[in-house]
């Protein structure tokens, strides 16, 4: 009987893990960088790393279901003659017709309207479906200016000047040929089937001084009626917020790296921009330094999933939050009911992110007429409304437990952090201590 040395267990490299090696093989085979939809998938410090303290002897809570806890928010009161008032502090983020089907845009409008909040257009212009089904519609003003026209500006309820988004601060958009249907091509004045590139920079202004003049022009065109938002990706939140305020924004929308995109390079999504959690306090600090906190509203987006996330963002100083990915999941994106179809595409429910290919089994991120038919906009709108209402109830539950009669009364003092990283980013004490890294000299 021969002796064999005991073998070691096969061990894979932590550096060259399965995903990394598969990406190297994919790049070598195709010669094209990987493009996908969604936001950062890597684990980053997030709202899960914060906890609420709740009330006890030193402060008293409000009775759940009995004592009122308000949730309304007014956006745009700084300069706009017609600010918008939302029943809940959760809005639907900008997503384009083109990246999404007409049915999906309609569902978002229906759901937002049922829940008393706003939805937002995207790159590619305003569709009749979303205008018709959205009580409050924010019209994005993007570098590409696809479909931009003064009629839609006038019939919008607010204008959002998009400078960046969290998934790709500094990057433009991309809509691959598979999704440029006749209708999408017509709205964007482009030939059908080409890869449509959206510029990363506005064509007729650069820098904060120009932005101030651009905002003046948009206000003059719309007779100073519409709130003007400025949306930035989470990169330098203190300075970007300060410059947006200086340029005359009514609202600053700040999108962290977990915020999704219809399609961009994987390397961009995972390696450019900051986590949402790290963006909020510097932005709030900028507003406070300028004496504009609560006068210019701050809307936070990027990875908001529940009422707990909403409450934490508000407690850190935001006026409202915006959801994109979560809203798509609510209307049916990545639903396990389509598992066989996801498998056929080489993926699984929950991981599908090749939205640019236009083959979405759920009929949401596609222009394919047959797939689009899978989404019933009325039922999907109802699901979104349900989800928004649950998030609102959850936010109120936490706010009442902290003794607040308006969700905006939540404050950093209500929070503690589970990790040193989250403590440093959110600038709330590490749980069980009074320590915030970087504060008090150490």
């Amino acid at each position, binding site marked *: 009987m021969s002796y064999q040395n005991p073998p070691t267990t096969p061990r894979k490299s932590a550096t060259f893990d399965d995903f990394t090696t598969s990406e190297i093989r994919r790049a070598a085979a195709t010669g094209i960088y990987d493009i996908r939809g969604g936001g950062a998938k890597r684990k980053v410090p997030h709202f899960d790393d914060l906890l609420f303290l709740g009330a006890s002897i030193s402060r008293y809570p409000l009775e759940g279901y009995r004592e009122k806890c308000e949730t309304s928010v007014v956006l745009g009161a700084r300069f706009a003659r017609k600010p918008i008032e939302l029943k809940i502090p959760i809005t639907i983020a900008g997503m384009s017709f083109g990246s999404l089907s007409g049915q999906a845009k309609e569902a978002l409008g229906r759901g937002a309207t049922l829940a008393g909040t706003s939805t937002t257009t995207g790159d590619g212009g305003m569709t009749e479906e979303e205008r018709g089904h959205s009580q409050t519609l924010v019209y994005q003003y993007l570098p590409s200016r696809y479909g931009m026209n003064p009629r839609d500006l006038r019939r919008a309820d607010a204008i959002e000047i998009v400078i960046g988004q969290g998934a790709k601060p500094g990057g433009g958009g991309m809509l691959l040929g598979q999704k440029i249907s006749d209708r999408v091509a017509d709205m964007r004045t482009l030939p059908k089937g080409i890869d449509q590139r959206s510029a990363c920079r506005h064509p*007729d202004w650069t820098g904060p001084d*120009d932005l101030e003049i651009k905002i003046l022009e948009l206000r003059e065109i719309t007779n100073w009626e519409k709130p003007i938002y400025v949306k930035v990706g989470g990169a330098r939140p203190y300075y970007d917020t300060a410059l947006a305020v200086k340029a005359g924004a009514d609202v600053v929308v700040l999108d962290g790296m977990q915020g999704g995109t219809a399609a961009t390079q994987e390397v961009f999504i995972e390696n450019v921009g900051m986590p949402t959690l790290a963006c909020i306090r510097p932005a709030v600090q900028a507003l406070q330094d300028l004496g504009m906190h609560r006068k210019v509203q701050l809307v936070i987006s990027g990875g908001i999933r529940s009422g707990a996330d909403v409450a934490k963002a508000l407690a850190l100083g935001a006026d409202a939050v915006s959801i994109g990915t979560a809203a798509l999941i609510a209307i049916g994106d990545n639903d396990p009911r389509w598992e066989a179809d996801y498998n056929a595409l080489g993926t699984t429910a929950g991981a599908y992110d090749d939205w640019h290919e236009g083959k979405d089994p759920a009929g949401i991120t596609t222009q394919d007429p047959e797939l689009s038919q899978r989404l019933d906009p009325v039922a999907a709108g109802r699901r979104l409304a349900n989800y928004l209402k649950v998030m609102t109830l959850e936010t109120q539950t936490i706010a009442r437990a902290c003794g607040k009669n308006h969700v905006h009364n939540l404050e950093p003092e209500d929070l503690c952090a589970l990790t040193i990283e989250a403590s440093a980013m959110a600038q709330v004490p590490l749980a069980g201590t009074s320590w915030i890294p970087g504060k008090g000299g150490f």
Partner: protein
Amino acid sequence: MPVIDLAVTPLRELNQALHDLTSGSNDTHFEVINPRGHHAVAVGVDQPVTVDVKGSVGYYCAGMNEQATITIHGSAGPGVAENMMSGTVVVKGDASQYAGATGRGGLLVIEGNASSRCGISMKGIDIVVHGNIGHMSAFMAQAGNLVVLGDAGEALGDSLYEARIFVRGAVKSLGADCIEKEMRPAHLEILAGLLDKAGVADVRPEEFKRYGSARKLYNFHIDNADAY
């Protein structure tokens, strides 16, 4: 004819008066004096009114114009007639950067020179420049016609889509995917019509060269990466 003196009247009143015009309104001709480089003069007009601006303007004059005929008797700052939908805008002097940016229709005539990025992302507008244009003009231009009687700067028509470019003088360099194309009778006809509309009488369409997209960058391919 209303005369609005921007030395004493706020810009807001001028634009509101223009926006308050309705179809069949009695006021069909406005004169704006002392514009003194004001930004956003006569923006968002959507009636077939005539506006004469007596002097030079700042950014975005005649922005998003629909139907109106707006003449600037001076020079224009950045973004003149940006995103114009229809109507006519004439600049008697020179125009700064981004003239006619993203314009979707109508006619923009610049009787002097235009700076860089003239016609950037144009989406159907016609632009006629009597003088020269600066670098990166017609960048990512999607549709419409850019006519230049003088010379064009570097990287003309970079990454352009279906817009047509006609240049009578020299082109310093062409941008990625922009090539010289054959001038066919149909193009000469389009050009003759544009020159006529722009009031250019002493120039023949045959004196121009035509430039357009090679359409090689319409769908991404790694072997074209050097072009980006």
